[in-house]
């Protein structure tokens, strides 16, 4: 037992001390938080106010396009030819040209000439503002009450509330999209973790075999101890990395939220106030956007309604048990072959169930309580991935218990099988290994 601990310690420390591990651990969260934050941060950057000169041949918009913090409009009384001729001597970044016949189907003739590309939001702002104004003008021209339309629109848009009712008669808000998201993220993580660390176990075993240190070690410990020590050591490396990622990501995100993103709430509040101020005005630009804060809040509420603690515990279980099941098989492969090139023929049959489980995840999401979902969340080779997809939708406790029990049985038997192949293969050099040969090894004595 003491010796297993020694092996675990070596396997763990030798990996954790590696530069690649440290780099991955630091870069991972930076990358993750970066992906989340950079776009938000970029969009919030106070860009220099861009200046647009508006040549409005229709005279419908002169002086009326709404100013914004990022874009300013001037309306010089010149023709488009004049404007374009002197464009490069002016301070303007762009010329917006609205043709005369804009109300009679000429709206596609609206042109923006620029020397420096306008920011995406500035361009969108121009487009929305003009579109909105055109819409209002059109309606007014036909004597339609704008408020009526706005009212109708407001009263006909809705988001359906879905509620799950449990046995005790309590209501539980559900959000299918969110569940899919959680399930998918968990399934991807389990899939990646099993692959990444399973292959690490295989490489480690091969390293011991090809460097021929294995015979020295086996004169001190049993092959099974060496194999289990490696598997557990690598599992701890995986857990460490995962934990560090969570902690680092949370810290980084917290830090970012406290500094860079502090302004964003302010902005949202401002946006809300603006809407109130604009009041009855049908605001196209904000139609889409003003729902966002409430949507986020709603999502957050739904998120809190999911039993995250249970899911996290199950995740850790399936994460570890799935890894144990597969890594034993990976260890057996590493022991059976002499070189990386030979691993392919054995890797494929092992990875197929894992890839398959991932492949049917989509179908499982559509019908999380169906036959397919049920059976593949019971079979140990696929259950870690498939069960994680099902879990957020709610799975009866007996099914979870059965699936977990089967998975434990599964990894005990793969470890037992792998141990037999391992102890023969690890001392076998220069022999081309076939499946038949592996089968024979299962029946060798000690």
């Amino acid at each position, binding site marked *: 037992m003491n010796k297993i601990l020694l092996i675990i310690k070596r396997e763990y420390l*030798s990996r954790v001390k590696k530069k690649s591990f440290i780099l991955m651990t630091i870069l991972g969260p930076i990358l993750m938080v970066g992906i989340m934050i950079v776009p938000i941060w970029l969009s919030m950057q106070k860009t220099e106010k861009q200046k647009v000169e508006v040549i409005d041949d229709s005279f419908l918009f002169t002086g009326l396009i709404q100013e914004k913090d990022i874009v300013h409009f001037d309306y010089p009384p010149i023709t488009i030819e004049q404007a374009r001729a002197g464009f490069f001597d002016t301070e303007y970044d762009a010329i917006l040209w609205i043709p005369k016949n804009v109300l009679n189907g000429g709206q596609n003739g609206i042109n923006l000439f620029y020397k420096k590309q306008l920011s995406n939001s500035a361009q969108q702002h121009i487009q929305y503002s003009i579109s909105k104004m055109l819409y209002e003008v059109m309606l007014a021209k036909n004597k339609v009450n704008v408020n009526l339309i706005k009212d109708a629109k407001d009263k006909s848009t809705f988001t359906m509330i879905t509620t799950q009712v449990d046995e005790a008669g309590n209501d539980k808000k559900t959000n299918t999209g969110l569940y899919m998201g959680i399930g998918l993220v968990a399934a991807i993580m389990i899939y990646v973790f099993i692959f990444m660390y399973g292959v690490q176990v295989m490489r480690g075993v091969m*390293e011991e075999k090809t460097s*021929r240190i294995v015979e*020295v070690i*086996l*004169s*001190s410990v049993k092959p099974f101890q060496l194999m289990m020590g490696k598997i557990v050591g690598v599992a701890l490396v995986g857990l460490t990395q995962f934990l560090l990622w969570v902690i680092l990501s949370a810290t980084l995100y917290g830090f970012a939220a406290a500094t860079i993103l502090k302004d964003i709430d302010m902005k949202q509040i401002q946006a809300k106030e603006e809407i109130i101020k604009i009041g009855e005005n049908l605001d196209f630009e904000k139609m889409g956007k003003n729902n966002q804060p409430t949507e986020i809040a709603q999502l957050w509420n739904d998120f809190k309604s999911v039993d995250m603690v249970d899911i996290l515990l199950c995740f850790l279980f399936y994460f570890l048990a799935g890894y144990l099941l597969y890594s034993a098989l990976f260890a057996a492969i590493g022991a059976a072959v002499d070189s990386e090139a030979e691993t392919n023929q054995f890797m494929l049959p092992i990875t197929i169930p894992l890839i398959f489980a991932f492949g049917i995840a989509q179908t499982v999401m559509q019908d999380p309580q169906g036959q397919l979902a049920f059976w593949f969340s019971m079979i140990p080779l696929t259950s870690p991935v498939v069960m994680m997809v099902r879990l957020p939708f709610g799975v009866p406790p007996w099914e979870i218990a059965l699936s977990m029990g089967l998975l434990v049985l599964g990894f005990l038997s793969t470890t037992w099988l792998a141990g037999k192949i391992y102890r023969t293969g690890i001392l076998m050099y220069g022999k081309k290994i076939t499946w038949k040969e592996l089968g*024979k090894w299962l029946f*060798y004595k*000690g």
Partner: protein
Amino acid sequence: MNILSAKNIVKRYATHTAIDDVSLDIPAQSIFGLLGPNGAGKTSLIRIINQITGPDSGEIFFENEKLSPKHVEQIGYLPEERGLYKKMEVGEQALYLAQLKGMKKFEAKKKLKYWFEKFEIDAWWHKKVEELSKGMQQKVQFIVTVLHEPKLLILDEPFSGFDPINANIIKNEILNLKAQGSTILFSTHNMGSVEELCDNIALINRSKKIIDGSVKDIRKQYKSNLFEIEFTGNMMGFTNSLWTFGKLGEYKADGEMCKAQIQLTPGSTANQLLSSVLTAVEIQSFKEIVPSMNDIFIKKVSEQNSIGTQSNFTE
């Protein structure tokens, strides 16, 4: 007393029998040579003694106790195919392997220091193994094998890969360890080192033991009463003086100096032969030709192999 006794060991693999009913007795505080051509089953037997694999039948006793995992700490093993973790530091690795053999960390550190200084490699402690030459790595491996002061030291081809200087250092260390009370079991093809070092041997061929015993006895057993006489004088006179005591074999005459091999006739003694030739020529040297282990090895192995082939033919 025997430190290790193997009784009727059999090990079978799917298609062949690696060890067929082999028994060995290794006396304590001696050097025991396990000889045999490639593929004879030496490594299989050594692995069984190290409890890396188990025999299909037969038993092994360590100091009269049935061999069990607790004996691992009293055995040191240097395999023929040996290696170290390439990316690990030398000192750290030696400590790890010593701890696996059951040593305490501080104790292992102290002893490692002693050995590293003795082999003049203390500067390598923090070097990675991949930075070391093959010979340097072998020194480290040797140290790791003997560090826990095992009662039984098993060395599989210990001299392969060493240059003559390092091989000599290792040879002296082996003798040293024997003097301090260790028993050494080593397998080798190098017959010169067998005669020099071994007290006892066992020769294994085609999974079976074909000879065992002390080196002295075996050589005595295989000697054939062949003598070599160097003399100055007349060759013809010398031949005549042999009488019936011996038969002239190969000879070489270089002017006055002659060297001749004489096969003693059965029933005669070396003294009779010597006193008879004394009167005819001037003797420079007189010695019995004892077969070397190398000769015995080749003779026995090829004998058995040709019998094997013949029986295959008749089948």
